[in-house]
């Protein structure tokens, strides 16, 4: 094994001259750069080409992030911004948000600093966060589904690939396709149809929701089924932790 002394001696013999030469050339180059440069009068042009619609996140799997990165709970502000993106607009065209999030009591409970008594964000996952996430999900999902009832096809946010008449028994493909879409929309996860851990539990939630509904028509029962799916996705750790 070379000692550091041996190494430095060898280095000086072998590399000192080339290093000095390199330094000289670089220095000389620096001097030459100080000469005035003619400004570019014709900026480069950019040619773009449409490749059609690209689904967000539709890429090959990536490695898990480095293990030193810690998981974090959504802050109140992240929550505030995520809701309209995920749930879209209500039937009046307003972005869906949870109004309680703007009151001091709820801000404090969710750990948002008021910069009077506290300046640090509290991001501990606790029962209060779980409770209000559940409330906000009930509120937001109902608005989104009410809006869906007034729209059709791709204009819908929750029931985009299934009609409100579809059930697991009558149109399993549509239910599955919609669940795969929702899993991607809410959690950013591409799941295969019938995936036993990602899709089937949601399918059961849809069925249970419709079965436990107080409503009398199939469409309204199914709306309650999608409501539970929406709430389940919003209260899931996969939505609330990152």
């Amino acid at each position: 094994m070379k000692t550091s002394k041996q190494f430095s001696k060898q280095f000086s013999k072998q590399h000192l001259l080339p290093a000095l030469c390199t330094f000289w050339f670089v220095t000389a180059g620096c001097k030459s750069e100080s000469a005035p440069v003619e400004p570019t009068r014709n900026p480069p042009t950019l040619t773009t080409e449409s490749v059609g619609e690209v689904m967000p996140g539709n890429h090959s799997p990536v490695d898990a992030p480095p293990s030193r990165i810690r998981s974090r709970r959504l802050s109140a502000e992240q929550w505030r911004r995520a809701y309209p993106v995920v749930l879209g607009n209500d039937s009046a065209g307003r972005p869906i948000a949870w109004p309680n999030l703007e009151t001091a009591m709820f801000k404090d409970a969710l750990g948002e600093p008021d910069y009077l008594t506290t300046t640090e964000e509290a991001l501990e996952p606790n029962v209060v966060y779980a409770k209000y996430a559940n409330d906000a999900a009930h509120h937001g999902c109902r608005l989104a589904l009410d809006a869906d009832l007034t729209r059709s096809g791709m204009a819908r946010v929750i029931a985009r690939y299934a009609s409100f008449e579809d059930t697991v028994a009558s149109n399993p493909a549509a239910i599955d396709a919609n669940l795969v879409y929702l899993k991607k929309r809410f959690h950013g996860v591409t799941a295969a149809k019938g995936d036993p851990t990602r899709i089937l539990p949601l399918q059961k939630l849809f069925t249970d929701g419709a079965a436990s509904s107080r409503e009398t028509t199939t469409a309204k029962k199914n709306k309650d089924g999608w409501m539970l799916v929406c709430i389940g996705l919003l209260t899931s750790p996969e939505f609330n932790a990152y």
Partner: protein
Amino acid sequence: MNHLSRRDALWFLAATTGVVALNQLRPLRSVHAAPGTNPPLFLWLTMSGGWDQMLVLDPRDNTDLKFRSKGEDNRPGTADAPNGSGIRPGYHLIVDKDTKAVLAATKDTGVQKAGNLTFGPAVPPSLLEHATRLSIVRGLDMNTVAHEVGMRYTLTGKFPRGSAASGSSVATMVASTTGNGLLLPHVVLGGAETYNEGLAPFASGTRTSPTSLRSLLEPLYPVIGPENGGEAALAEYEAAAATCEETRENRDMLPTRMRQMNKQMRDLLRADKAAEFDFASKTPSPAVKDLLTRFGIVTNTDIAGPKGRMAAAAKLFESGFSSSASVVLQNDLDDHSDWHEEHATKLRAGLDALGDLIKFLVETKDKDNESLWSRTTLMLSSEFSRTPLINAREGRDHHITNSVLIAGPGIRSNVVFGATSDNGLQKQKIDFATGRPSESGSYVRPTDVVATLLSSMNVPLTPIENQNPKLLTALLKK
């Protein structure tokens, strides 16, 4: 014979270190939480802003000449104290009528004696009544005069990293051994901070307030299906096995903790106890009405203040929802100016509510017909105290030596442990076996107080072990 190579030795060392570290990270073993038994109760209380300990737990005789200004003319703003004592109680400068009444009753000394303890003039009769159930630690070395640092030091028993809290809240440590299976094991009131570093998730503090408790205990929007059928389906979904994505994100157990919180939340909703915590109702139930009366709650301001916070803690303990509480008892004590105007009033309001809580706990029996107080341990402090001299703005600044009020079934009551000097209220070395000043003793730190309380409750000291805690043995019951 094969010799152990250096590489082997390093592998062995790394492996054993890893095992020890993992052991430390494991949630603490439950020492109390036998199902069906009444858990020990714990209250961590703070007076936010820095209190004047001479008005509460470490008084000085206001008539003693060494604490009066030369030719005392009673004017505030006379910063210099005479005779080199560096202390000026200045009780006679306080405008509050209750303080004036105490001065009149104590021949102007301002020092109230109750049992073996002495208190300052801001301590109300409602707390003095329980003096023999309490003990005082004086001369606490806070090692800081920064608000957040001092508060977090008393909150966790560990000196902060910079200004960031280190370790878990004391109430979290206690809840991790006493609160398993409770609906809200550790409740946080009055805007207190709460931390959980590596302890059981259920012990994390739940931040709420007396006015928002109801909203925590009932759904804010209609649920799906009769008899909460939809909620049951959601609970089942949430309890399902973790997906691949969640496992990838589960390095520090955050998703697992969130699942546990979701379960706790649904259990809370199922308990259907919201009406019992509706303190602001115009038509309160008889039980709520009784509680409000006992704590003297009349207005909405009362509900949000010390009275409401103590009433909420009382109700949460009584109902068996919680075993641990972290509470900011009073706010806004940082009186750098005009100390004589409101400081004593605010202290008295907080301590009055505490007196009402102790009375409630003493009088309320659990299912074994034991008083709730018989299993309550408490700690009341502030992030630091205020300077013993009055500054030019008629206020008091930050002072590094502090005091703390403690009590508990494992703590000797009616005892004063430690002391401050009669020269500038300085810390003194204390013999921990006797609680008296001794040159061969040590300074008392918040770590030592926390360790003593935890030890008295048989809660493991593992989370604060790296602070080298020393037990205040004179305060521990044998």
